[in-house]
């Protein structure tokens, strides 16, 4: 394994600027790593030629001293992002072969900044899942195996993005986070997962799952790297009516300054029955780290936390059932053989969508249909207002919140495929953040007794990613997490 692939984004950037290494060398090293990591199944559509080509352009710009903020940095993006001329399928058979003639806003910003595309990354079909097992490309395997040798989930739905960064196939990657899909895989793979505030990044060109919750997210191996990347992908876009027209701070320089006097809330409801004691212990330990660095720890209450999950599983499928109505085999994508239009719809969608997607479409149609709308959809939107109000209240007293990212470490692939509800319950700590549109980050904090990573989550005020990242950096500094998975996948 090339040493270059161990480097962080930050270090690569320095090396490229100082011409210690060329962008093409950097790209080749990562293309090689991707090529050898087939066993992880993290990359669905590798784009090695494009990566090298883009790197050659980067080298020209670097030679002329005019590189962008990410000049020569190779990375992959979740298959939820539309990338011009590269298949973009949301890991669904229904979009088989779909090659968009357009680029998502967020990825456009990456290429503008000089980054190179290594490939499209595996995920749950239409980002609906928490284990990256439901997509058309099959399951992603977590690079971590801990003390056992079972194949574990890398989490989901951005499992490919997390596994690729954890396995050193790329320094950073993009995922999307609708109910925890960046933070939970980050926790399961020992990486940093950042979900920006709703509206911070444009949704233009991201294949929609649940529009009021979807947000692009970042997977990285350090808080600094995630801050650098956020600075590139954040910003207003007039093509998305929910994109916020507010200033983007220089997150990297905002990292300095420490957390002295920062008020950190500990929401007591983020503890559930059956949660391993080691997660509780880690939580207390992390609070201690922050206190040592000068923060004030305050216990707070978010009383509607436990209602967030059922509300989420009403609202997200409702939006999804409508967002996915466009996949019908007429304008693009897969089309089944059929007599008549209704059969065309029914068969195309039956053949094109997988089990979990169908389940959510049915759920969503049900909660929106006549007679059930008030009891489910409207009720859920009222509960959502209460969940958001809880956060508003505590953010009058504290600057960030500290809580576990997940109630467990990575579980075995296949373990929860037959128990839908158990899988949904794994999102309990991540979902409230999406309902309220807040920024949050998962930072790897330690390995558990089985040798598997555990993450701590920090939640910030809407659009105050700067404070959030500073707190995350403090946790990272104290945790000193430097474990690396054994490269068992590499021949």
């Amino acid at each position: 394994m090339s040493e270059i692939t161990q480097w962080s984004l930050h270090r690569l950037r320095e090396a490229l600027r100082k011409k210690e290494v060329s962008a093409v060398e950097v790209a080749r090293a990562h293309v090689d790593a991707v090529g050898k990591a087939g066993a992880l199944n993290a990359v669905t559509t590798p784009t090695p030629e494009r990566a090298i080509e883009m790197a050659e352009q980067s080298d020209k710009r670097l030679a002329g001293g005019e590189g962008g903020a990410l000049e020569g940095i190779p990375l992959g993006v979740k298959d939820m992002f539309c990338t011009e001329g590269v298949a973009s399928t949301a890991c669904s058979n229904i979009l088989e072969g779909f090659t968009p003639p357009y680029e998502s806003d967020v990825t456009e910003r990456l290429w503008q900044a000089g980054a190179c595309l290594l490939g499209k990354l595996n995920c749950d079909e239409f980002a609906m899942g928490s284990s990256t097992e439901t997509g058309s490309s099959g399951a992603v395997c977590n690079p971590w195996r801990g003390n056992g040798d079972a194949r574990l989930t890398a989490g989901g739905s951005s499992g490919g993005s997390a596994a690729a960064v954890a396995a050193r196939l790329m320094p950073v990657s993009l995922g999307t986070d609708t109910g925890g899909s960046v933070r939970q895989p980050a926790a399961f793979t020992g990486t940093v997962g950042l979900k920006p505030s709703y509206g911070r990044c444009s949704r233009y060109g991201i294949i929609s799952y649940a529009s009021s919750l979807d947000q692009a997210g970042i997977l990285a191996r350090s808080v600094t790297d995630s801050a650098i990347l956020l600075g590139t992908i954040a910003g207003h876009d007039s093509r998305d009516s929910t994109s916020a027209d507010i200033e983007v701070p220089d997150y990297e320089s905002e990292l300095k300054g420490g957390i002295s006097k920062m008020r950190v809330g500990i929401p007591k409801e983020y503890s559930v029955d059956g949660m391993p004691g080691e997660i509780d212990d880690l939580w207390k330990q992390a609070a201690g780290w922050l206190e040592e660095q000068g923060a004030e720890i305050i216990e707070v209450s978010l009383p509607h936390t436990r209602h967030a999950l059922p509300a989420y599983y009403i609202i997200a499928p409702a939006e999804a059932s409508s967002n996915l109505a466009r996949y019908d085999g007429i304008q693009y994508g897969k089309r089944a053989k059929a007599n008549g239009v209704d059969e065309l719809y029914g068969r195309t969608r039956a053949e094109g969508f997988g089990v979990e997607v169908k389940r959510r479409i049915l759920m969503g149609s049900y909660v929106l249909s006549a007679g059930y709308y008030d009891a489910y959809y409207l009720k859920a939107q009222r509960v959502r207002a209460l969940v958001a109000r809880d956060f508003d209240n505590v953010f009058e007293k504290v600057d960030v919140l500290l809580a576990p990212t997940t109630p467990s470490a990575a579980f075995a692939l296949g373990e929860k495929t037959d128990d839908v509800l158990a899988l949904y319950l794994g999102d309990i700590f991540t979902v409230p953040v999406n309902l309220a549109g807040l920024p949050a980050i998962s930072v790897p904090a330690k390995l558990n007794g089985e040798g598997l990573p555990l993450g701590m989550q920090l939640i910030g005020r809407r659009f105050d990613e700067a404070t959030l990242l500073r707190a995350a950096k403090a946790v990272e500094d104290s945790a000193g997490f430097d474990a690396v998975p054994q490269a068992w996948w590499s021949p």
Partner: protein
Amino acid sequence: MSIETKTIRQIAALSRLHLEEDELEQYREDLSQILDWMGQLESVNTDGVDAFTGMGGSLLEHARDDSTAQTPSPDVLLSNAPERVDGFFTVPKILE
């Protein structure tokens, strides 16, 4: 709460998902279980609480003026279409 097969059949038809009998039964069971679990929301007091209406501010702030932009050529627009005829998308004949 148990959903009737008839209801699932209706929902599947509304969603244009062709389901075999065994699938219908599986989804009936799944949805019954999930909706049961969602039933806990009933106990939440939401009296006087307005439904959440998003975080985007007012739409008018995000609106644009009435200027036009070049659209993709029909060739590009139809480049991903599974079937097409003379610049049109096609579907099996519709009887009105």
